[in-house]
């Protein structure tokens, strides 16, 4: 935006500072047409300049951690879908990896590859949502509709994999809910191609558009030091030039066997965040293609009745497996006492699960370290002294997901 200071004045005129007045108080939200996510931003304005802001979250607080403590380990998986509902499978994966770490087991290669593919599909759906909604809030409706169309393709893939589009509940402790259906690789390639074709149109409309660039370039700048001090991770931090990507630095699943680039930005403004996300879309597609090509045959679940239900075919006909089934459902998986912290690279940054087990079938403590929470915190700093209109693109590119931030 043009940055003539509200306080500067031409000689002989009265500057705004000298006018008698008081700061204007403005409440953005909790449901504001230009913010996706229920959050309230209390602003004090001096003209169009933001003097002070207070970001208030919590409108979507549902007591995720309390619910998890009340149920068995497996019963918490559907709740993790609702954390970041734009990329549900990544949450499933993070939670299940944490519980598996407690048990000290690892799923077979096919399960790992499928989890990787599913995670990347979710990441794509998250980035499509973020970029589309971001454009919409800057009054560009068409890119939003195209992005939703691209996201529908991703959700078709969710549906083919696990039967649900958003509330996936796909990953299980020690495996997956179900194997990929017949012809999944072909379907996946077809849907990815369709989504990329639509997204190319979005890029054509946005990337070089002078209005879009005006709104994004040079706004919401935060230095890498500030972001690190606030614990911000993910595309926001990468746009500021720090190549931190857990898929690379602390690889989990099979990311260490796949070839992908980590895009970083230079200045850390909103436009860099946009470009980084666009590039990540391409990299996710690359990851999926490689993983599909390398997808091995074999089992998807660990064969361990302590944590994974036995195959149904045997439950029907054999006593032992039937007993295992009854025991596991009624008592729940009982990991040994202890605690773990497992982090995965969510669509918006480090998604960590800290689980404390006391050896019973219910988690004593199940904590989710959500990227959106830390990322939203820095919004106040980013818009300090900026123009009111800069709040919208900055908030968009932070991509605060209420379900994850408020839990």
């Amino acid at each position: 935006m043009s940055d003539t200071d509200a306080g500067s004045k031409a000689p002989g005129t009265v500057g705004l500072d000298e006018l008698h007045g008081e700061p204007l108080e403005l409440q953005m939200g909790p449901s504001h047409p230009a913010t996706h996510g229920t959050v309230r931003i209390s602003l004090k304005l001096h003209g169009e300049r933001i003097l002070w802001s207070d970001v208030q979250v919590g409108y979507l607080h549902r007591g995720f951690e309390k619910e998890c403590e009340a149920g068995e380990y497996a019963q918490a998986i559907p709740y993790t879908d609702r954390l970041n509902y734009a990329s549900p499978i990544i949450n499933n994966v993070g939670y299940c990896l944490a519980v598996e770490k407690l048990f000290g087991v690892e799923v077979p290669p096919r399960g790992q590859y499928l989890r990787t593919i599913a995670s990347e599909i979710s990441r794509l759906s998250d980035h499509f949502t973020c970029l589309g909604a971001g454009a919409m809030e800057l009054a560009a409706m068409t890119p939003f509709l195209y992005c939703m169309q691209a996201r529908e393709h991703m959700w078709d893939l969710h549906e083919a994999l696990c039967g649900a589009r958003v509330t996936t509940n796909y990953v299980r402790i020690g495996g997956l809910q179900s194997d990929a259906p017949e012809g999944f690789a072909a379907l996946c390639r077809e849907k990815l191609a369709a989504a990329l074709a639509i997204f190319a149109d979005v890029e054509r409309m946005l990337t070089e558009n002078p209005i879009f660039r005006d709104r994004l370039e040079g706004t919401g700048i935060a230095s890498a030091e500030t972001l690190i001090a606030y614990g911000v991770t993910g595309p926001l931090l990468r746009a500021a030039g720090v190549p931190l990507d857990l898929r690379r630095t602390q690889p989990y699943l099979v990311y260490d066997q796949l070839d992908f680039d980590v895009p970083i930005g230079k200045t850390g403004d909103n436009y860099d965040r946009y470009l980084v996300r666009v590039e990540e879309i391409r990299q996710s597609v690359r990851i999926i293609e490689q993983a599909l090509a390398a997808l091995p045959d074999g089992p998807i679940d660990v064969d361990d009745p302590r944590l994974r239900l036995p195959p149904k075919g045997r439950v029907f006909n054999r006593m032992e497996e039937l007993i295992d089934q009854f025991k596991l459902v009624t008592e729940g998986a009982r990991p040994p006492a202890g605690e773990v912290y497992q982090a995965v690279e969510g669509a918006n940054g480090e998604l960590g699960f800290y689980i404390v087990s006391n050896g019973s079938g219910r988690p004593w403590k199940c904590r989710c370290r959500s990227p959106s929470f830390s990322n939203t915190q820095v919004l106040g700093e980013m818009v300090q002294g900026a123009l009111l209109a800069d709040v919208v693109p900055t908030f968009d590119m932070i991509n605060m997901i209420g379900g994850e931030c408020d839990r």
Partner: protein
Amino acid sequence: MPGRVVTVERRPRPRAMDSLGALAILRGLAVTSRHFFRNLWGFLRGRPTIFTINYPEEAQQFAPAFRGMPVLVEMPDGKERCVACGLCEWACPVDCITIYPAETHDEVERYPRVFDIDMSRCMFCGLCEESCPEEAIVMSDRVAIASTHWRGNVWHKQDLLVPVGDLEKRLGSIRRGYDTRASEPAVERESA
């Protein structure tokens, strides 16, 4: 596998684009008109290319794995397959299943006298289906659960029973996974 770190390139802004905002508008118009004419052509040919469907007239085609509302499997003799073991009740995270078992003189000996699912609480997670040792509760492809009163959302056994023939799609999908871990040959389900 070592990958690279790439810096995203920011293209220089062409002066013409800036001073002549109309250029960007034309460019956007080109994209949207292409979509419009393609959709129009598809519509005229009777082969719509638009993404949405005319919902009540056309039904969405679900994937075989689709998880809709949980229903009870009705055997050809008109009875439920459920033996009221209570595992699904136990597995349900939101406690929306209510079962009262009773005894019968049939071969299976037990049946649910009452089997209610509160559809307003059910989240279609499928954990009940996974825990059932009898393949008696499955996720159908039915999704229409609206009612005008909250009591109408409690579905009783009679409403939940669906003939096994109508559930082939979902049953076929879940049966794929029945022996994925078997080191031994697959075991056929004995006919009930």
